[in-house]
């Protein structure tokens, strides 16, 4: 059964990932495990994972602003960046999915029934794409609205876009949220603040990007996503 010796993936440093049992986040109280996680050394099962080489990449799925009968309402933005590992190497041909609220801060979802905010018939709020050979991805969308939620008194989520990325292995799977620079709501948001390390939290905030801003059309925001890198020490398979 001996196969080539392959390194596993690195674990996040102290405070660099959020804790599941986070008192400030009410939804975690009955859902976060009470028992400690059991350390699992990476084996062939964790260093492999689904590949998306053959996934049909539909360019229309990366533009969320083209609705069924017209343009989505709101401020058009370009969100682009690279998916990299901790050593700065591009993660190629990996599936990136995203979803978000509309410009008024409402999701096209049965559970989101805010009576005071309309759905936009031209905005579904979801998209997907594959990274290219340099790990790059690019979406055109609208700036999502902030919205109230029930977590605590007068709680508002900062404007954010949800991102789902697979990476090369089961061990690198990541679902995260992208925020906007200078958002005053970040200081009050338990989801953003569930990660203790300040530098790690900064990873979640996109940067205004003049280079990708389209004149007269759309502001550009850059959001690089960094997945776990490879361990230097080979593991014995």
């Amino acid at each position, binding site marked *: *059964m*001996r196969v080539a010796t*392959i390194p596993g993936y690195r674990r996040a*440093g102290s405070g*660099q*990932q*959020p*804790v*599941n049992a*986070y008192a400030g*986040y009410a*939804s*975690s109280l*009955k*859902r*976060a*495990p*009470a*028992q400690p*996680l059991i350390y*699992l050394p*990476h*084996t*062939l*099962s*964790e260093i*492999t*994972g689904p590949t998306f080489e053959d*996934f049909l990449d539909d360019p229309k799925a990366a533009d969320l602003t083209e609705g069924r009968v017209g343009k989505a309402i709101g401020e058009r933005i370009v969100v682009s960046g690279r998916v990299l*590992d*901790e050593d*700065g190497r591009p993660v190629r041909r990996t*599936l990136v*999915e995203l*979803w978000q609220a509309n410009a008024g801060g409402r999701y096209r*979802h049965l*559970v*989101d029934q805010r009576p005071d905010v309309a759905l936009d018939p031209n905005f*579904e*709020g*979801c998209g*997907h794409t594959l990274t290219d050979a340099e790990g790059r991805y690019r979406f055109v969308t609208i700036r999502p609205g902030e919205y109230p939620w029930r977590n605590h008194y007068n709680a508002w989520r900062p404007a954010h876009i949800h991102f*789902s990325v697979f990476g090369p292995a*089961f061990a690198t799977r*990541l*679902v*995260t949220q992208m925020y906007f620079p200078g958002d005053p709501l970040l200081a009050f948001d338990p*989801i953003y603040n*569930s*990660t203790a*390390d300040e530098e*790690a*939290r900064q*990873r*979640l905030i996109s940067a205004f990007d003049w280079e990708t801003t389209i004149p007269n059309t759309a502001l550009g925001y850059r959001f690089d996503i*960094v*997945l*776990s*890198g490879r361990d230097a020490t080979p593991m014995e*398979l």
Partner: protein
Amino acid sequence: MPLIPTPSQTVGPYFTIGCTPGNCDSLAAPGVAGKHIAIAGRVLDGDGAPVPDSMLEIWQANSYGKYAHPEDTQDKPIEPGFRGYGRIPTDDDGKFRFSTILPGPVPGPDGKPQAPHIEVSVFARGLMRRLVTRIYFPDEANANETDFALRRVDPPRRATLTARKVPGQAAQFEWNVILQGAGETVFFDC
């Protein structure tokens, strides 16, 4: 200087609008080799209440114990019609069901085979990070006894990782995810 990895954030309650391109609850095409099985169960919270806004992701080897991935260099066949990947959102009662084939054994530490298992990620509103667990099978008692991952778990909790046969249904298994409290599923730091 290595880059700091991007922190995980919860999928929140609305992920079903975005995480659809990768959804798949039928992992194996009809002609794929191996025993075709179905696994069904529920995701429950610390009060035993169903979790309707969660999803499971599945990763597994084929019946020969080979992963459809370039880093699996074992001299075993890859099968067309079987990627080994699935994604299933839970329904209003917290229920999920997927069909697949029984995975074969894959190598583990020290070159010893691991017991047949399925890797599972659990995502939900309320979970800032995914939870990682494994499904093992009741007919593999000997292999389970020596499996390196199961041996890291206190014996009384190992049963949470083993699917149960559904009486009278040879190819049907039940396996539940209990996020918290009595009978809490074993989750791994992966």
